[in-house]
């Protein structure tokens, strides 16, 4: 396998990991630790697929995925801020909800068919000249969602480090009370951030079915929603580090997949374990550098 193909395949999975971990980072920056990514991805994968299959339009599929993300994100903040339920408990319940919902919806609308229905393909972006250069073309000969991910990562970095609102938003994660005193509407920001973040996770979920496989299958996210939580943590909630982490895990996933085909002496299952084990190893290695927003996981009240 040449390097350009390798990069090209890695970027496809990077898109999934990066969008999900970016979504988690955005929520986390205001203090909402959103671990329901796996559930959002599954629900968005199936509803995105169904909408795009029925309307024969790729865009509506992603829109539906984002919308599902918004709804689940809203439920998370709503229950947390109004009833003060632990964020992890809500998150886990939402994962259960999302994964049950995804299969239920698919069975109700599509059901079992002789031929697996396929969604319309996501359009590719064609940049003249640049797409002919080896290596670089691996990054650029991609579909629109990959470019969406590039833009979102840049935008998030610019927002947090170059704008006043971004600085305020980072401050909410560190000290909500102090930012409230200055006049920032903490709760409203939490809603906005978590819903935006969850919408990105929804797009990533829809990308699994619409962009990668073209069809829906149960448990299609295969733990990536949780691996992205790992990425968000050791990226210390920084968008620019999250995309690097996403690339790293996507590369490990692609490599382990290739190795299991090539190797004859070592059972393939051990190669497939690599991505999961490497999450743990990376987290142990980087534990010293990890920083958490101070108010992460805590409900905010003005009392």
């Amino acid at each position, binding site marked *: 396998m040449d390097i350009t193909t390798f990069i090209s395949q890695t970027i496809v999975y990077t898109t999934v990991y990066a969008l999900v971990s970016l979504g988690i980072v955005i929520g986390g920056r205001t203090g909402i630790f959103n671990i329901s990514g796996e559930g959002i991805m599954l629900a968005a994968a199936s509803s995105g697929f169904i909408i795009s299959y029925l309307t024969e339009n790729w865009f509506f599929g992603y829109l539906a995925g984002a919308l599902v993300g918004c709804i689940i994100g809203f439920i998370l903040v709503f229950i947390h801020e109004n009833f003060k339920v632990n964020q992890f408990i809500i998150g886990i319940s939402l994962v*259960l909800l999302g994964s049950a919902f995804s299969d239920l919806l698919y069975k109700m609308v599509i059901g079992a068919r002789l031929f697996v229905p396929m969604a319309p393909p996501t359009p590719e972006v064609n940049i003249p000249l640049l797409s002919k250069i080896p290596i670089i073309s691996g990054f650029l000969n991609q579909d629109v969602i990959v470019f969406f991910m590039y833009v979102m990562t840049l935008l998030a970095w610019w927002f947090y480090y170059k704008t006043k609102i971004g600085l305020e938003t980072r401050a909410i994660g560190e000290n909500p009370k102090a930012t409230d005193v200055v006049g920032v509407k903490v709760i409203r920001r939490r809603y906005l951030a978590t819903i935006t973040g969850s919408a990105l996770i929804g797009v990533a979920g829809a990308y699994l079915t619409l962009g990668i496989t073209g069809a829906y299958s149960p448990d299609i996210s*295969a*733990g990536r929603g949780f*691996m992205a939580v790992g990425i968000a943590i050791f990226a210390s909630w920084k968008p620019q580090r999250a995309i690097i982490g996403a690339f790293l895990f996507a590369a490990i996933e692609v490599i382990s997949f290739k190795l299991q085909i090539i190797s004859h002496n070592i059972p393939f299952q*051990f190669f497939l*374990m690599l991505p*999961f084990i490497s999450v743990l190893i990376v987290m142990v290695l980087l*534990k010293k550098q990890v920083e958490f927003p101070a108010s992460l996981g805590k409900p905010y009240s003005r009392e």
Partner: protein
Amino acid sequence: MKEQKKDKSQFLTNFLRGLMVYGVSIFLAFVIISFFIALLGYNVPRALQTLITTSFRSTFGFQETIKKTIPLIFTTYAFTIPFMIRFFNIGGWGQMLFGGTMTAVVGLLLVNVALPSYMMIPLLLIVGILSGGFFALIAGFLKAKHNINPIISTIMLNFVAYLFVNFIATAPLFKDPLEGHPITKPLPDSAMLGFFKGIPYSIFLAIIAIIFVFIILKKTKLGYEITSVGYNPSAAQTYGINFQKTIMLTFLIGGALAGLGGSLEVINIHGKLIEGFAKTSGAQYGIFGILTGLVVAGNPLAVPISAFLISVLLVGADSLQRTMQIPVEMVFFSQAIIVLSIVTIREKLSRGGK
């Protein structure tokens, strides 16, 4: 005298509160289930009747319910015990898989040794307990020594365990050559735990496990430590309770119980290792263990009842799918709604009461 009266009224408020939490949540869930059934164009009363009564209408239905309840009790404990000190073990499934797989490995390696049952069965159960406990201890260790969120580590380990099952079930040494799927050769007869009138003997081990958890939590120093860490971690640490040790022990106990559950599935239900054995109604016992654990709010003594009720719904869900073609996921979906509303209403009431 006054104290007693206060206790009584306290008990009554708690009871009413509980009744309200569960009543409202279950009512809500049934409204949602009815909505879906109506949406699919089925007879709502008939479907609800099937859902609730299948377990009690026939001996077979009841046996099936018990067969689901037993492993569910084990995976629920795997979640509940670390949850008592506010840590999330999402890895009950992986620990069950690992315990079951190691049991099958040892059982198959001892095929030619011909140990008698009274030695073979305890040996295999111990293998299951130790390997399940070891597998959970990895996550406990990563939390205690490296501060890695157990939600992530246990989920990663679930995938590792799943692939490990596949490896063993397809390994030339163990695989049944006549089977197309990843399934091992049967374990020797001396390793099998039998049935009594269709009820697996593993029910006795489930009962022992319930008593064991009760004794650990209520009668030992460790139980006291777990309760106090759960109540107030920083105060407990100030009074000299080793927090790291408590974390590791709760994961160890939870995982050991899940491993025992996996072991029992192999030697009592299947008699061999089947890929995807720790599943019911097409979903993992681990998932239902988390559901059940959240329903009981980490109260280990309520686990058996809650596990039984969830199993009743699962048996009903299977029957709905068989007889009325209503997807089982509909019941999973409403179970998730039940859990979400139970945790929300409970939190609301407990804060309102303060």
